[in-house]
């Protein structure tokens, strides 16, 4: 079954209008018109008439879950989510950054989303590749039958074939061109620390200038802060103006976590984040 972006957009508008009219929510997070058709942007509808501004097309890559923590606790929010976005919502609920009962989740089963910068299909190479949201209150379209055949970790094969030295050289080369605009952390739904460790100056964890050492400090720390939390939406990599393949490291850590603790991030609100949860049966592999 082909995805009808048009139908999804209509249904999103209808649901947003209904929720805002009934007063069930005070805002709806979705996508709206950008400067051209290929560049829609995250959008907030605050009154029923705003619902008309909602757009959904194949370039709606952004993860609206990124904006949840921007609003005061207790704000009633409806949020439109694709599969990976829904995992971010679940993870934020697990981390108690937002309450389940404050949300109305509009789940969008979809595939065929494209990166507007490159025109490339966004699939399990750069994201988790799931088609259906893992949690929702309202389903905006029929669920897509089946799931990707390949694993979201298949893309790691080449990376995992490298030895430690080669990996370090790889990351040094990739991270050297970082300009420290922090688009990656700002686009990330899980990067909500205020202040971020790298902005602190007592103690100062890393240099402010985009030198190789400071870049390594920033990125390696951020990668590990997201261990067991990254839901593999790929927004960090798409946000990067210098195309650093950040998703590779995140996927590697996610894979390790899944192998060690048997749990992927943001799949169920009953789960606890792996690194804050102690279970007797947990793997000791990390200590080996």
């Amino acid at each position: 079954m082909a995805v009808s972006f048009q139908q999804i957009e209509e249904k999103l508008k209808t649901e947003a209008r209904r929720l805002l009219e009934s007063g069930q929510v005070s805002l709806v997070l979705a996508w709206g018109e950008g400067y051209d058709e290929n560049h829609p942007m995250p959008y907030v509808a605050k009154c029923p008439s705003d619902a008309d501004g909602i757009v959904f097309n194949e370039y709606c890559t952004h993860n609206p879950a990124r904006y949840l923590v921007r609003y005061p606790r207790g704000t009633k929010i409806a949020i439109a989510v694709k599969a990976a976005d829904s995992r971010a919502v679940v993870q934020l609920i697990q981390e108690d950054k937002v309450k389940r009962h404050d949300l109305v989740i509009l789940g969008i089963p979809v595939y065929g989303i494209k990166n507007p910068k490159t025109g490339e299909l966004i699939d399990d190479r750069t994201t988790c590749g799931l088609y259906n949201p893992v949690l929702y209150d309202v389903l905006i379209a029929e669920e897509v039958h089946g799931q990707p055949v390949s694993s979201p970790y298949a893309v790691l094969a080449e990376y995992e074939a490298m030895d430690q030295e080669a990996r370090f050289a790889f990351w040094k080369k990739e991270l050297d061109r970082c300009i420290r605009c922090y688009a990656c952390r700002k686009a990330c739904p899980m990067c909500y620390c205020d202040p971020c460790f790298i902005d602190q100056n007592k103690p100062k964890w890393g240099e402010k200038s985009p030198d190789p050492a400071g870049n390594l400090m920033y990125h390696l720390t951020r990668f590990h802060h997201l261990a067991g939390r990254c839901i593999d939406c790929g927004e960090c990599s798409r946000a990067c103006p210098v195309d650093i393949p950040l998703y590779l490291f995140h996927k590697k850590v996610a894979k390790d976590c899944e192998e060690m603790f048997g749990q992927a991030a943001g799949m169920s609100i009953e789960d606890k984040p792996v690194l804050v949860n102690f279970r007797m049966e947990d793997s000791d592999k990390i200590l080996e």
Partner: protein
Amino acid sequence: MLKKTTLNQLSDLAFALMEKGTLVAPVRQNAGFQFREITDAKQVDLNFHNTVISPKSVFFPQTEDFVRYKTGRPVQEAEAVEPQGKPLILFGVRPCDVKSFEIMDIHFSGTGAVDPYWQARREAATIIGYAFDVGAPAESEEFYQTLGIGAADPEGSDIFMVRHGDDLLLKSITGRGEALLAGIGGLTGASADDEKYFDDTVAAGRDFKTRFTCVDAKAITKKLEDLFHHTDFWEKASNACLSCGVCTFVCPTCYCFDICDETLFKQGTRRRVWDACMFTDFTLEASGHNPRTKVYQRLRQKINHKYSYHVRKYGVISCVGCGRCTRYCPVNIDIFSIVEEAMKA
């Protein structure tokens, strides 16, 4: 003086320029084109639309060391880093980016407070501009024509280049450009047809349409001032904004910086590093007070600075319409759409 070479011989031209000074030119990198110091003439590549980071970074690098020191009590050793004034050739700069140097000059030397690092490089530089392809439509992010900048404006360049099929026409615009052009071997003289093509391209560049209609800087300034307290407007405009620094870092006219001491193993440098008004801690005061804690306040500052305060203070919009901020914004915020919305509000 109009001279000609072919694109096949570009590396010969680059090689000749490297003999005259440090050559900085567009180079294809992992993530698109960037201006880089050329070490191998073959690196120079003119098959680009524009670079990711603007060429401001040549005069105003992201990191600039002022003082190098060793720590200890009393201070062991400290040495000032002298400004570098080696001859510099900046090759392949698009007309809108050439215009940005003039705007940046206001801040780094024009108001009386002279930045010696900027000035030394700027004075040592010969700028070789490069016309956009006026035969192809503009990219949807660009709006330099709106701001009165032509797609093939030679103004501000010392030498200006126009591509004619597989040929590259080079015309000297200033005396400095003429001296440089005269000293380069391997170029052929241009025909009357070439002269005509060059002039036609410059003229076509003036009429070249980018996506917005022309607007009046004074009207925008006034309107933005009136809108300052309309929080609803700014909140709506910034709903999607992530408050990252991409737009300012790729911008050719953003000039804010921070000065910090970075020390490792008792060796330190006092350096200037680009900063961005979109960062939360940009306005964080030592007391802990932060006058701009909200995203809308920061975006409002950015837009007002470029289109309102700057016009009031220096008489010119601090934007050249290159479209980089829009092109690289992770959430597709378009700065000029916000200005247009403001004019309608």
